[in-house]
């Protein structure tokens, strides 16, 4: 067991896979000697050298185009898009090319690639460097979408993503980079499409993702003190989506609350809500409530940003009110 930060887990996860498989390469801006602007690739350049860990120009379309072309010809690239907001400058390669080409070619091509990116707010970076874009990615047929909430999951899900033959968008919550946990030595390989139940309760089910997971857990503790016993589910992977686990936990309590960092409209929670409202309608004991960032661009000031993103207090208050407590 070693204490590992979330950011250290990224490079450990990548290194684990690069050691195993020579066709795994990493590219991105400043990921080489500099170790990445979030220090998520520290040590990789030293261990694997400049051919396998390569700095690129500020050319996000070229970065992802390169990853796509390499994947279709036998490599397994891990490309970094520094901030997930920057997906907007290379969105075509992601949604129109990578996501669709296997289907369009009737399965002639396979795209075993991972695109990792720093996602979400909390660092007071303002509207163009703080977005949670998990719903951008979930919305697009042909992309898998993984959002780990802790260092252990980072390693295991990174391994699963690299080994998966399909394109995986791997979103790293920037506000979690400094978080720490004990992680066992040795290889760690997890499974895509498996949600985790982190806490079992009887009154309501909170379904959360990424940076919202620790907040949902904390809120559940406080709610328990107030007499509301919550299940907390960490979705971990939006596509594939573990609806089996989620539905089981929602029907068990009869109440669903989503805790989402993405802005309100068309979030993953809306999708989940619609699945539950269609398939488990008769098992629900009350409204489905979504706790999200409001539908606004994110403000830079710390005071404002803290009001925007769902906080433990807001989760507690919303659940308590809705449960009539």
């Amino acid at each position, binding site marked *: 067991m070693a204490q590992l930060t979330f950011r250290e887990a990224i490079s450990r996860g990548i290194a684990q896979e690069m050691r195993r498989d020579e066709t795994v390469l990493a590219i991105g801006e400043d990921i080489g000697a500099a170790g990445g602007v979030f220090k998520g690739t520290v040590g990789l350049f030293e261990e694997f050298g400049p051919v396998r860990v390569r700095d690129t120009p500020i050319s996000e379309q070229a970065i992802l185009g390169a990853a796509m072309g390499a994947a279709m*010809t036998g490599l397994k690239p891990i490309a970094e898009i520094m901030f997930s907001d920057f997906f907007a400058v290379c969105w075509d390669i992601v949604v129109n090319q990578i996501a669709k080409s296997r289907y369009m070619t009737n399965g002639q091509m396979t795209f075993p690639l991972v695109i990792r990116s720093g996602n979400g707010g909390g660092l007071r970076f303002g509207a163009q460097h703080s977005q949670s874009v998990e719903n951008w990615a979930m919305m697009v047929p042909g992309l898998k979408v993984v959002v780990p909430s802790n260092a252990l999951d980072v390693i295991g899900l990174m391994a699963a993503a690299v080994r998966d033959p399909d394109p995986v968008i791997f979103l790293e919550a920037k506000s979690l980079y400094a978080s720490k946990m004990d992680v066992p030595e040795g290889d760690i390989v997890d499974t895509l499409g498996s949600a985790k139940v982190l806490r079992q309760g009887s009154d309501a089910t909170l379904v959360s993702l990424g940076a919202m997971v620790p907040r949902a857990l904390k809120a559940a503790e406080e709610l328990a003190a107030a007499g509301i016993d919550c299940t907390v589910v960490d979705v971990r992977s939006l596509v594939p989506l573990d609806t*089996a686990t989620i539905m089981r936990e929602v029907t068990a309590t009869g109440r669903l609350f989503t805790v989402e960092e993405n802005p309100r409209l068309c979030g993953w929670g809306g999708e989940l809500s619609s699945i539950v409202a269609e398939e488990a309608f008769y098992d629900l004991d009350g409204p489905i409530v979504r706790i999200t960032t409001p539908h606004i661009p994110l403000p830079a000031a710390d005071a404002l940003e803290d009001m925007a993103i769902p906080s433990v207090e807001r989760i507690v208050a919303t659940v308590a009110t809705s449960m009539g407590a």
Partner: protein
Amino acid sequence: MTTTTSPDLDLDAKLELYRMQVGLRQFEKRAYDLFLENYVKGTSHLSLGQEAIAAGFAAAMRPDDYTFATYRGHAHTLARGVPMTPVLAELMGRTNGLMAGKGGSMHLTSVEHGVMGSYAIIGAHLPIACGAAWSAQYRGTEQVAVCFFGDGSTNIGAFHEALNFAAIWKLPVVFVCENNLWMEYTRTTEITAVPNPAADRASAYGLESIIVDGNDVDAVYAVATTAIERARAGEGPSLIEALTYRHGGHSRADPGKYRPDDEVAEWLAKDPIPMYHARLLGEGATEAQLVEIELSVAAEVDRATEEAKAGPTPGADLLMKDVWADGGSAWRN
């Protein structure tokens, strides 16, 4: 125009180049007819008049080299050896199509033949071609990626990113701008800051400015050979501008009326196929040989048409197939 030394091709090889061009020509004409007859349902963008570029490059490529084409990709696909039947059937949306009807005219792909896709969003495939070239470089296979695009496509951001990227990583990729003077209905020089949209940008990436007569298959073959060998030898990318003209409209039933009559006439007079026909006669081929080629190609096109028409319409099983590598489309358990 870059001077090209007469390529080292014997008459047989040249007859092959002729056959290829005639094949592309007759195929496209048939595709057009089938569009008018409502067999081809979606859109299609023909290479009529531009056959020499596809033929000259394909002839210079190694079987395991990579082609990246655009929506105007029938010719590039066929030139790599993909049979006519699956291409025509794809245009018609049949299960015997190259992608079982799922891609359509704009996305022809045959990995088996090195045709790594036809891309319908302007610019996207230039960076993707870089990726295939990077992969070849890493794997040490000496494969080369050849990436075709139009004059109008030189003004989109991805062009710039790809050219710089290929140059700094010295990637084995050859970028080929088929300059047919027009984007859809707008003349490219009207919306481009330089007269030669590709060649005049080469220096921005430390590359040589190369212009070739795209209607002269021998010239194309020569320039292609040089660039491909350069790439194969690890000397990096090239950017080639091939001057040509599309005989028809941009797509489907567009009559191309926005183009001045004399411009069309001028370029019809430079039609690559009669031009090559005449050259081959001068170089010792007989009229009978050439006619034989034309007839045998015609028979091939007829056969392909019948085979394509006989293909079944795809059913629901195909609809949900192959979103993922496991063959399915499930996004949940």
